[in-house]
Every structure is written in C-alpha cells, then in structure tokens.
C-alpha cells in the first residue's frame, strides 16, 4: 500500500510519561553501564564491582533525567522534533557534568567532566535513534491498522439493513426516518474522519450511542442497552473507533443470533489515573462460528498498544450466560476545548 506508507506519522519525541518508554530507557542505559563495566573489569569476578562503580555515577543522573523529562514532557512537545531533541541532549550533558562537579572525588581517575558529558551525549543520541526507528517501524503499522479499522468497521450488512429499515419508516413515520438518517450521517462522518489522533471518550460514547439507536430501529425489542457511564471521564483521550466496533460485535454476536430480548451493558468509570471499560453481551454458544470477532478485537488490541504501549489492557471472557470485554487505559485529559457537551456540532 504505497499511498498509505507515504502518510507516515511525523517524527516525534517519545512520550516520557509512558511506562513503556521509561522502562525501555532504564533497560538500555543500564545495559550500556553493564557493557562499560565488562570492558573495564579485568576479571569476571570484578565485574560486579566495576558495575557498581559505574552505576554510582550513572544512576543518579539517569533517575534525575527521567524525573526532569517526566516533568518537562508537555513543554517539550511544543517544540519541533529536532529542537526538542537538542534541548534534551544539552540538558542531559549539563546534568552529567554537574554531577561530576558536585562529587569529583568519586571519579578520581578515568571519567572527567568532559568525558562524562560525552558519554551521556552518545547514549542520548543512541536512545533518540532507537525511539526514532521504533516510531518509524510502527507508523506503517498504525496506518494499516487505521485502514483495517475503516474497512472492518460498520459491516455492509449493517448499512443495507439500516437503509432498509429507514425505507420502511418513510411512509408511516417520516420524522423518525429523518432522525435515523441524521444518525446514520453522523456515524459515517465520524467513521470516515481522519482517525490518526486520539479522540475523547465523550465522542466515542456518542458514536456508540448513535450506532445503537440505529440497531434498535431494526431489532426493536430484541435489543436492550444499559449505559453505566455516570462516572465516565468524558474528557479522557482514547483511540478513535475503539468502542463502536466492540458494541457492533456485541450486537452481531450477542443479539442478532437470539430470538429473545438481550441486553448489552456498557460500563465506563474512572479509577484514579485509569479508565475502565466493561462491555457485556449475551453469550450465544451456537453462533461462535460467526466470523469477525477476533479480527476486530485484535485490531483494537493492537491500536491500544500502539497508543498506550504497556499501559493499556484488554481482556475477554465468558461469565455464565454473558460474554465480557474489559479494557483499562491510562487516563489522559484532553485539552478542555475539544470535549463536547452532549453532542458535537459538526
């Protein structure tokens, strides 16, 4: 897909508040320290001594750098990529040099101020290169995941059945038909929007709600929906189209195959810095051969991972007569102006 790979994600600094990023920096810097120790130590037995000696210098700088990066993260993203990187490099060199100056006695021989700062610069450059490549490696995946999301989302089955249901309303209840077409237009507008960046939970809830309104039109009494979203953080940032596909799956696998009334429950709440999403639908064991469920789940899992790294979780399971999907994502606040009220004005 050559057209897609051209629209790759622009260079950006990693998110220094992400657990995955912090963990990667910690591991790589400590591996470098171990390598340095291995070069310096004359015998294997002295390796741990050499490592401790190096760690004594490296760790305080590392921890201080990570703390500063965590604090400065929102400020740093305001700059272009290369300027942000230069600011970080200079900052870390100063930090290293400063640490040498405060405690010169530790490094009586070997590392001087200049050499320490050079090592820090080298390591920073290496880390920047690593994150840069990682970003590049994942950006086609992100683009492809978006494409898949667009293609897999909203089954044609749904579109044609909904149009058919709207046709049935036009003569008897023109007003309802109008509302239904408005919902359908909104739904497709959001589905076709550029899905590159994170969106707000409020928008995702609206999207899922409009989708369920339309399903209710054709399924009637067979579909019942319970929303438990009083404690949902409407301003939380989430990947676009992370809720609607799951709701669509719930209808497709849990409601459509059953002749009786079934309930879909959507529960969203915030617990300190985590957003918990739970989706429940009736489990229809005889219809497990219907395809598509795993593709949608895998797609959402992948996108959660791309956006939140190790901080997002997705688990599925069957509890009694119900099928359940549980997600947990880090709570990130959207800038206030982008949070809609009840509905987005187009």
């Amino acid at each position: 897909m050559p057209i897609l790979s051209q629209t790759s994600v622009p260079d950006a600094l990693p998110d220094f508040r992400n657990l995955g990023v912090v963990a990667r920096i910690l591991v790589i810097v400590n591996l470098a320290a171990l390598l340095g120790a291995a070069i310096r130590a004359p015998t294997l037995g002295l390796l741990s001594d050499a490592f401790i000696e190096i760690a004594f210098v490296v760790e305080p700088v590392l921890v201080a750098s990570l703390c500063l990066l965590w604090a400065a993260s929102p400020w740093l993203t305001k700059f272009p990529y290369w300027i942000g990187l230069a600011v970080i490099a200079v900052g870390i060199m100063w930090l290293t040099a400063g640490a040498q100056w405060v405690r010169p006695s530790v490094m009586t021989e070997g590392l001087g101020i200049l050499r320490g700062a050079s090592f820090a610069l080298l390591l920073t450059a290496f880390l920047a290169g690593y994150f840069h490549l990682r970003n590049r490696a994942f950006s086609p995946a992100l683009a492809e995941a978006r494409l898949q999301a667009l293609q897999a989302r909203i089954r044609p089955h749904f579109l044609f059945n909904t149009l058919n249901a709207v046709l049935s309303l036009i003569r008897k209840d023109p007003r309802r038909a109008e509302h239904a077409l408005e919902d359908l237009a909104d739904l497709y507008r959001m589905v076709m929007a550029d899905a590159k960046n994170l969106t707000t939970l409020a928008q995702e809830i609206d999207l899922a709600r409009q989708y369920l309104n339309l399903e209710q039109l054709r399924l009637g009494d067979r579909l019942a929906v319970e929303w438990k979203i009083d404690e949902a953080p409407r301003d939380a940032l989430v990947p676009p189209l992370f809720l609607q596909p799951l709701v669509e799956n719930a209808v497709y696998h849990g409601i459509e195959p059953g002749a009786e009334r079934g309930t879909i429950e959507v529960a969203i709440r915030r617990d300190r810095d985590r957003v918990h999403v739970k989706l429940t639908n009736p489990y229809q064991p005889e219809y497990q051969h219907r395809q598509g469920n795993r593709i949608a789940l895998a797609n959402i899992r992948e996108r959660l991972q791309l956006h939140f790294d190790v901080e997002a979780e997705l688990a599925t399971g069957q509890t009694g007569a119900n099928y359940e999907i549980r997600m947990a994502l880090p709570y990130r606040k959207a800038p206030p102006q982008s949070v809609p009220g009840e509905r987005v004005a187009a």
Partner: protein
Amino acid sequence: MSAAAPLRVFLVDDEQPARERMKEVLGDLATELPNVVVGEAANGREGLALLSREPVDVALVDIHMPQMDGIEFARHLTTLENPPAVVFVTAHDQHAIEAFEVNAIDYLLKPVRAQRLGAALAKARSSGAIRRETLDRAAAAAGQGPRRFLSVSERGRIHLVPVAEIVYLKAELKYVTVRTPQREYLLEESLASLEQEFAAHFVRVHRSCLVARRRVRGFERGVEEDGEGAGWAVVLDGVAEKLPVSRRQWPVVKALAGALAERG
C-alpha cells in the same frame, strides 16, 4: 395466472421493519402482479410451523436469522409434497450470494426495488421450487455447517427432529429410520449423504447404521446376526436396543471405545 387468483406470498425475516417494507413494495406491485401476503414469520422454525397451514406460492426468505437461517429453512421446505418457490433476500452476505450464483438460485438484495421483486416473483412462479440437491450444494458452498434439524413430512406438515436428539440412523429399503429416545421417524435421504454431512455427530457402526457419538455408552459381546458381525454390539444411551458392529467398522469403532475409556 388470472386476476382472480393472486400470488400467495409468505414472508420470513427476523426484522419486523424489513417485513413491513416488503409488504409495502408488494402492495405497490399489486396492480401489476396481484399478490396477497398469507403469512409471515420471524425465523425459519416459526416459518415452518406456520407454512404448512395453508398453500403458498412463493416464500421470500431472509438469510441471516436466529434459530434457523434462510437456507436451512428452504432445505426443510423441500420435504413438503408441494413446496413453494423460494426467493432469498439478503442485505449483504457474500458467501451466500456466491453460492447462489454458482447454483443459479435467484436472490434479491435489500433494499429491494419493486421492479426487481416483480421479476423475481414471476420467475419463481414459473420455475417452481428449488430442488433439494441444489440447496444442499448452495448450503455447502456458503460455508454453512450441518443442519441443526432433520425434517420429516407428516400429513402435509413438516416435523423437525433436532440432530442433537437423534440416537441412531438406520438405512431401511427406501428410507432411513431416525431414532430418538421418544420415537422413530422415516426420512427420505441417503445414509451416505447424512454420514458425510454429520460426520462430527455420528459414526458408522455397520453398513446400514450410524450412531450418535455422544450416545455411545459401551460395547457388549454376543451378537452375531449376519455374516458381517464382529461379535460386538454397541450399547446406546436412550434406547434399549443394541446394534451390531460390523467386522469392517470394528477398528474405527474400537478407537472410539478407547477414547470413551480414557474419558472415564
């Protein structure tokens, strides 16, 4: 057909608005092609129960439905003495559509246009019911699993026997006897095709007999009724009779017995 005898149409669709819409379009067609909707059902099972009450010329059948989908419904219909013609209606079901194309079965796409519906009804009326073999092939091509019921025609009504309730199937001269714990039915199908379709459910113990794998309780020595007997008989849950196992099938059945023993 004269104006005095309108086309009798039966609707099967799980979505009520879809049935309403179909009635509207049929109404629009009425001057051109006189028709009357004689009944409607929300799924295949309900359809079969209602359909045998009065004669129907054409059934308009949705494919995706709970309890029993459209293709299985049409397959059971063929057990009737005078089955109605069937026109499938679907919103979007690529597999089924391909299967219909291959087997030259007519279908309509939702939303349905009056003109297209009129043509399909006229064609269905002249060509009559779809043959069972054609439907079987289409069902297989559409990637459908085995049927969930076997259908038996009794006094013009279709009786459905859930496959899960069947203990054994035994070939007689012209028929296959279907045995459930409650009673027996006569089925006009071949044992070989049943064996193929329900390979996961049944195992052949004898040239003329398939038994439900889940119903096998154990084996007993002692029966030797014909030349093929291996001297073993299978004991089944739900019926008192013991069925002889042929020498030829004994190795296959014995493997099943081993699996049974492992299961405890």
